[in-house]
């Protein structure tokens, strides 16, 4: 009789399992897939210009001693428009920014830059997302912090918010 509590152990285990299932059904797992390609050199690439009047982007240009941002964006990406003011603010603070346009057309990129401003020194056109995949990036917009040696130090997924701007400037400053 003294061991009668043992009888309730299976019920308790079932209860815990049931609770876990309910929890995961109501609170889905984190689905943002972070790049594992961090603290590694930029993959080798040589992308043609995404639009007339702006230079294309080569991976070798990203190791010139200056820490910088590489922004993965697209003209068809609505949140990228919301990010434009923050990129402008970073540009104004002297941060070099290069762009990689995903699955984009020259006319569309030109229109995007006309409407939202152009904070980019260079924009490479990645029409088959091959550089995006090589970076472990899973969406747009994403921003990579690159140190002066061309090593990727951090990935920011989604839109850069206004309050993140000073933090990003400080991080790039620390890489110098």
């Amino acid at each position: 009789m003294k061991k009668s509590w043992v009888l309730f152990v299976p019920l308790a285990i079932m209860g815990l399992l049931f609770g876990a299932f309910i929890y995961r059904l109501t609170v889905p797992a984190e689905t943002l897939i972070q790049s594992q390609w961090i603290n590694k050199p930029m993959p080798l690439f040589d992308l043609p210009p995404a639009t007339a009047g702006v230079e294309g982007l080569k991976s070798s240009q990203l190791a010139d001693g200056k820490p910088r941002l590489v922004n993965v964006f697209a003209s068809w990406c609505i949140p990228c428009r919301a990010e434009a003011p923050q990129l402008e603010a970073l540009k104004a603070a002297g941060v070099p920014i290069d762009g990689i346009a995903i699955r984009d057309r020259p006319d569309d990129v030109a229109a995007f830059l006309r409407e939202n401003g152009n904070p980019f020194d260079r924009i490479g056109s990645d029409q088959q997302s091959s550089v995006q995949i090589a970076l472990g990036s899973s969406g747009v917009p994403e921003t990579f912090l690159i140190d002066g040696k061309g090593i990727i130090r951090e990935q920011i997924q989604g839109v850069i918010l206004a309050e993140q701007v000073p933090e990003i400037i400080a991080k790039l400053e620390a890489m110098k």
Partner: protein
Amino acid sequence: MRVRLLLATLLALFAVPITAQDRLPPAPYAYQQLRDPAQEAKAKALMETLRCLVCQGQSIADSDAPLAGDMRHEVRTKIAAGESPDAIRKWLVARYGNWVTYDPPLDAATALLWFGPLLFLALGGWLAFGRFRRGGTDGESEI
């Protein structure tokens, strides 16, 4: 502050899925098979075990997301260039983590899946052995 947080959450929600809004045609090998049937079979088998990053319940073989199409193009191009499916899987895992493969390797996180059944079988065997050894009367009177 609350408005900002709401805005941030909304933007974060928008940022994740790349819906098919781009106006480019699919990459050449997104919907086209390789000429060599043996190579295509290898590519197909591999693509069925790679997870789409956008529509996350599907393999890249099943998904119509543009990024999945570009990943199929990447896989078929690499297979055509003579790379082994294993090497391609490793290449992708190095970028997206084990999340991207439907054939996860044996490591600390998956050990329980592999050894759990053996563990439970051993536990069951031990319990059963204990009951048989004690004999019918003892066991029944206790429970």
